């Protein structure tokens, strides 16, 4: 299977995000990357957009819905968000969207920090297999994988995509 060039996909995604912000009159977006891959993508987008607040990070370990199946993630790193996200326009960024459960957990966590004005979802890759009604507002590439296949992003420099 042909995998997309990540750097190029990131650059294009950045341009589309700039247009998206303008279209929706969002002047001071808060970029929030989901650990770990989402933070790398968020940092790439931040370099392009030069947003004021830099990149915030979200560690969803305490919010996952599969604790009873898989337990606690062994390496919890914690979230780093500004003092207040009240009334902010949040751009939630992840590397790969699949079931949608990570995004649900991330939104639950965000609401424990405050009540944002809006949340938009940006993902580098969409590999389908959705289990929840969650769709990205912007997505770099949609990949149709074979059954049982997964993609793995390694980084932060260089960002590389491989099949797993």
């Amino acid at each position, binding site marked *: 299977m042909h995998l997309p060039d990540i750097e190029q996909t990131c650059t294009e995604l950045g341009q589309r995000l700039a247009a998206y912000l303008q279209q929706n009159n969002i002047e001071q977006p808060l970029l929030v990357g989901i650990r*770990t*891959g*989402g933070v790398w993508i968020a940092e790439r987008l931040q370099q392009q957009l030069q947003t004021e607040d830099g990149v915030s990070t979200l*560690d*969803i*370990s*305490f*919010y*996952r*819905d*599969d*604790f*009873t*199946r*898989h*337990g*606690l993630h*062994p*390496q*919890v*790193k*914690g*979230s*780093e968000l500004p003092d207040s996200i009240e009334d902010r326009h949040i751009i939630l960024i*992840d*590397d*790969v*969207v*699949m*079931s949608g*459960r*990570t995004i649900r*957990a991330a939104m*639950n*966590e965000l609401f*424990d*920090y*405050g009540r944002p004005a809006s949340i938009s979802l940006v993902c580098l890759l969409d*590999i389908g*297999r959705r*289990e929840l009604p969650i769709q990205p507002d912007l997505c770099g590439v949609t990949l149709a994988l074979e059954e049982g296949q*997964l*993609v*793995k*992003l390694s980084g932060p420099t260089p960002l590389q995509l491989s099949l*797993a």
Partner: protein
Amino acid sequence: MTTDPSQVQLTADGRLKHFLTTEGLSRELLTEILDTADSFISTQERDVKKVPLLRGKTVVNLFFENSTRTRSTFELAAKRLSADILNLDIAKSATAKGETLMDTLWNLEAMYSDMFVVRHADSGAAHFIAEHVTPNVAIINAGDGRHAHPTQAMLDMLTIRRHQGSIEGKIVAIVGDILHSRVARSQIHALRTLGAAEVRVIGPGTLLPRDIEALGCKAYYRMEDGLKDCDVIIMLRLQKERMQNALLPSEGEFFKLYGLTEEKLTYAKPDAIVMHPGPINRGVEIESNVADGPQSVILNQVSYGIAVRMAVMAMAMSGQQQERNELAEQNSEQSDVHNNEPGQEEA
């Protein structure tokens, strides 16, 4: 005969499923507890202090010995993990009616409890429960006799790491009644494992265990010698009943020799921190000026205590859950469900 407690508390692949003692745990595991606790400190600073991690789980506080502070911090920790918590004043209830300890525990287990937080006056009580009574309930030791108080030790480790940068290479002095202190024992094991350069104990000969040097400590009888070049001073609470047992001359005499005053504090490094597990006896083991002074981190310890308890509760529940799942899998090996696991996307 019971087995090594450090093994009873671990799953087959080395994760925590009970938390009974710091003794025998690896540096990696102790560090994982501290890292997880660090993340919980940041959730404690939000308006919404709860996380949904242990939603639906039932935790029972079983305090066979009184301790308002420890019990409340465990209660808060459980609540901030979204668990349901039941406080049983065990001394006044079941056992008073003649029910045995084991019957009480089996009854609580039959109510689908997931975790017991146990404090008991007998050394080894938590270990005994974990191994022989209710092994499928996560047991957290909140202090057993003279043996161990592992969550207190870990909150002390977190305090040192946050205020002195690391534990590795630091000189730490523990002062007071080491002989009767489960806190000191747990601290010594954790400090040694986490790479403290020196662990010193300071106190009168009657209150230092004879075999203390076998634990890798150096014993000192004078504050002036023991505090020299220290990065961390941990004062222990002096229990008044020790005076009646003639192990000590008097409170006044003890304070004169071992009470931490501003003057004695100058023997240590200028940036040394002062710790105390609480509750403090002002004017007995520590002077008010020091307890409330700029080098004191005594109240920080209390805040970190909640985060550390959240961390070990989450980790032990996680290990316990893993074992339950494995057991369930073994029992339904034939069911042949090849499930695509819903969960975090692999990325």
